């Protein structure tokens, strides 16, 4: 058993090759789908290397090959210049590769220490392992600014701290190469900045970091080099200092993309939605929405910022008629029912509210239904889709679907294809087409571009702005601050089921919003 100190390894193995990882000619197919085609990439040791690409570009497949989840059909992997076979994740760990997944793989009711040694215990007795791990963990924490209480239960830790535990796990297994898959999706801007400092520290200690993300800003902020993937191929590797977000976006999509949507100044009109003291309890009786009051006028976008899980979903569900709530919601001067049988999606639609839900795959679409059936979803009682009192007019629904697919550029434009067969972006276009084309007075939108590729993001943003300019009220919930800052006319920040404050997107910055998102209110004034 090698002594688990972080320095020992580097001292013994004198680097032969300047590259920590080299992939040569990697190809991988799933049936007829070629997820990776002849991928070549070389990651210099001691650098932070970004990999970006749209959803389905093959980033995850490539990393899964590197971590031993899949075997490549062709190609070779070189670790520190040596050809290495990685048939399983144990081999990857032995080769010095550590992986931090998007969804953490931690045992919630174990302590940090127990999680760190899980699977890396030496001997049958835990005590010796735990004692040794405590010592190593202390060293690691000091070395890399990874401050975590080793005896805290994981379930009590914030998401940012849980991520640090994942990084510690990898380092404890003596990883020299750390792969992080979309690490900032669940973090506040503050936490993300801290993570980047940690990564910088790892780099300074000679570790190699591979950062997979779709956020161009992060790539620009922390990486040394960046590789761009598009449809299974590697379209280029460039020095970060010599590129720009626009150039990267163009590489990713294959055409010019507008990152910032053109936005006319808002012209707020009459009051459309007025919410007073809205409260929602979850199934366990815990209050998730603790008295929300807000109002939206015609022709404006109200953005709700916040880290996921701070009541935004409950707000959308209460307004969309999905969850029961207490308080008052007045829509176009009429009070809406918030509980009971009249509180449902049908009465909400009748009141002029459309809803693009946060999770299109579990809420917004029936994945096994065809595109045309999904275009009627929620509006299956609409008179234009009926043949007579008894039968639906499926032909009319199909024709309407063809029209909407053309308007919203859904690809492929085949109404009879099942929703699950479309890419994430096109699924979202189906939902957006259905809800926006209803011409609602109020549009509720949750995470409109989650898992959607850049080209479709641009399109969906334009549609939302178009609806605003047509004099409609829009409630936009998103965990992407860029999106909120780019689209909203007013921003409310939610934390722990409450509204922490309102900001003007023109007069605020990510830092200020980030503090509010973390629950820190302004101390000045009061």
């Amino acid at each position, binding site marked *: 058993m090698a002594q688990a100190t972080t320095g020992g390894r580097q001292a013994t193995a004198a680097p032969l090759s300047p590259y920590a990882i080299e992939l040569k000619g990697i190809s991988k197919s799933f*049936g*007829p789908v070629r997820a990776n085609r002849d991928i070549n990439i070389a990651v210099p040791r001691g650098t932070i290397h970004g990999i970006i690409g749209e959803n389905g570009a093959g980033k995850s497949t490539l990393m899964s090959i590197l971590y031993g989840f899949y075997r490549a059909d062709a190609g070779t992997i070189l670790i520190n210049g040596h050809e290495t076979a990685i048939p399983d994740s144990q081999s990857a760990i032995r080769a010095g590769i550590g992986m931090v997944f998007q969804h953490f793989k931690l045992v919630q009711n174990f302590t940090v220490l127990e999680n760190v040694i899980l699977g890396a215990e030496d001997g049958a007795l835990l005590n010796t392992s735990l004692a040794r791990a405590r010592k190593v963990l202390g060293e690691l924490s000091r070395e890399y600014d990874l401050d975590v209480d080793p005896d805290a239960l994981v379930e009590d830790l914030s998401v940012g701290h849980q991520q640090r535990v994942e990084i510690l796990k990898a380092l404890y297994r003596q990883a020299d190469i750390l792969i992080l898959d979309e690490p900032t999706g669940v973090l506040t801007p503050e936490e993300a900045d801290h993570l980047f400092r940690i990564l910088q520290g790892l780099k300074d200690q000679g570790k190699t970091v591979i950062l997979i993300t779709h956020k161009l800003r992060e790539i620009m902020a922390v990486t040394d080099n960046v590789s761009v993937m598009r449809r299974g191929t590697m379209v280029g590797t460039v020095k970060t200092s010599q590129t720009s977000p626009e150039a990267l976006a163009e590489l990713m999509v294959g055409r010019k993309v507008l990152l910032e949507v053109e936005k006319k100044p808002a012209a707020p009109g009459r009051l459309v939605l007025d919410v007073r003291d809205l409260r929602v309890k979850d199934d366990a009786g815990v209050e998730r929405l603790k008295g929300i009051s807000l109002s939206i006028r015609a022709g404006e976008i109200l953005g709700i910022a916040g880290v996921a899980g701070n009541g935004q979903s409950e707000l959308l569900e209460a307004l969309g008629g999905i969850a029961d709530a207490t308080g008052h919601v007045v829509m176009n001067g009429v009070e809406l029912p918030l509980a009971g049988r009249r509180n449902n*999606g*049908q009465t909400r639609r009748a009141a002029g509210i459309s809803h693009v839900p946060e999770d299109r795959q579990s809420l917004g679409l029936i994945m096994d239904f065809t595109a045309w059936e999904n275009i009627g979803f*929620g509006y*299956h009682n609409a008179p234009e889709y009926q043949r007579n009192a008894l039968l*639906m007019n*499926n032909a009319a629904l199909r024709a309407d679907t063809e029209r909407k697919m053309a308007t919203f550029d859904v690809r492929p434009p085949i109404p009879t294809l099942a929703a699950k067969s479309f890419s994430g972006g096109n699924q979202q276009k189906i939902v957006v087409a259905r809800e926006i084309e209803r011409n609602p007075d109020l549009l509720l939108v949750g995470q409109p571009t989650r898992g959607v590729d850049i080209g479709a993001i641009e399109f969906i943003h334009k549609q939302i702005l178009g609806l605003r300019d047509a004099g409609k009220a829009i409630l936009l919930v998103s965990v992407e601050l860029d999106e909120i800052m780019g689209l909203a006319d007013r921003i409310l920040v939610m934390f722990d089921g409450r509204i922490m404050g309102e900001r003007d997107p023109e007069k605020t910055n990510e830092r200020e919003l980030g503090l509010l998102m973390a629950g820190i209110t302004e101390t000045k004034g009061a």
Partner: protein
Amino acid sequence: MTKLPRWADVVLVPLICLIIAFAFSAILIAAIGQSPAHAIWIMIDGSLGSTYGLGYTLYFATNFIFTGLAVSIAFQASLFNIGGEGQATLGGLGTALACLLIPWPHWSLALMASILASAAFGAAWALLPAWLQARRGSHIVITTMMFNFIAYALMNYVLVNILRPQGSMDPATARFPVTVNLPKLGDILGVVGIPFSSKNPANISFLIAIALAFAVWVLLWHTRLGYALRAFGKQEKAAIYAGIDPVRITIYALLLSGGISGLMAINAVQGAAHRLVLNSVEGAGFIGIAVALMGRNHPFGIVLASLLFGFLYQGGTQLALGTTIPREVITVLQALVILFTGALPYMVQRPLEALFARLARKEAA
């Protein structure tokens, strides 16, 4: 992930499953010292070789179409109604009361009353489990199963204490008046000049079952209720987002399911037995589950699967009569078919998918 072409999914997979099932059956028959070829010939000849045998096959198939449709309509709403047995039993009571209480001048009037009564009784028997599921979350697999036993006990009580004619030792109702007897399939086909035996229980209910299958197809794919029901069955949370009331859909789906189960009585009770006996359903409620599985919950598939099970039932009866193969072996044969066609199609699907993918790649290359 490659997908099978539709024809392969609908036709090839069940066919291969069936062939495997028969292959295993052949091994079993050979193992007890009988000739598999002879046994299969007896089954085919006995169920399809004459219009007499074919009539029996269609009679059994009719029962299975009703119970299969019943299971499938609930299954489309993701509700597993295994209470078809009890609901059909109660349907029998409805039919018996309709036929016995009112002196009908013509069978057609009696049939309409019997359809209404059997469906209403079957649906009523599903109402309480439906309500418990929708409002209280009591799982219908448990409740409908228990209601099967309650139905049997209730029928026992009603037949022995109320409906049994005086002086009879048999726990059954009196024979229905001849005027309510349904026209035999042979008689109907005779009108249009097709010779068909009338010495079997096949009757007009077969045509009603076919019409019902079509009606269920229309309901599921061309009405708002069917749309809501299928959406609820696929993704309950999404259905709530769309404003579909889960309580109402659960209750409607199970009432429809129970009603269709109950309709089986017009075939078995009014059409064939002409009286209500203690065990008028004879397991058809459970066969309906296998039929629905094999028919992929599609009315068209259910009709085909019902014909297959009708063949197995009638063929199995002939096998028991014409050979020394024990009755239990026939049950095993039927079970093998259910196992392979209902429960194991994935076993066939995977290799087939790989095969088709390879063929597609070869074509592309």
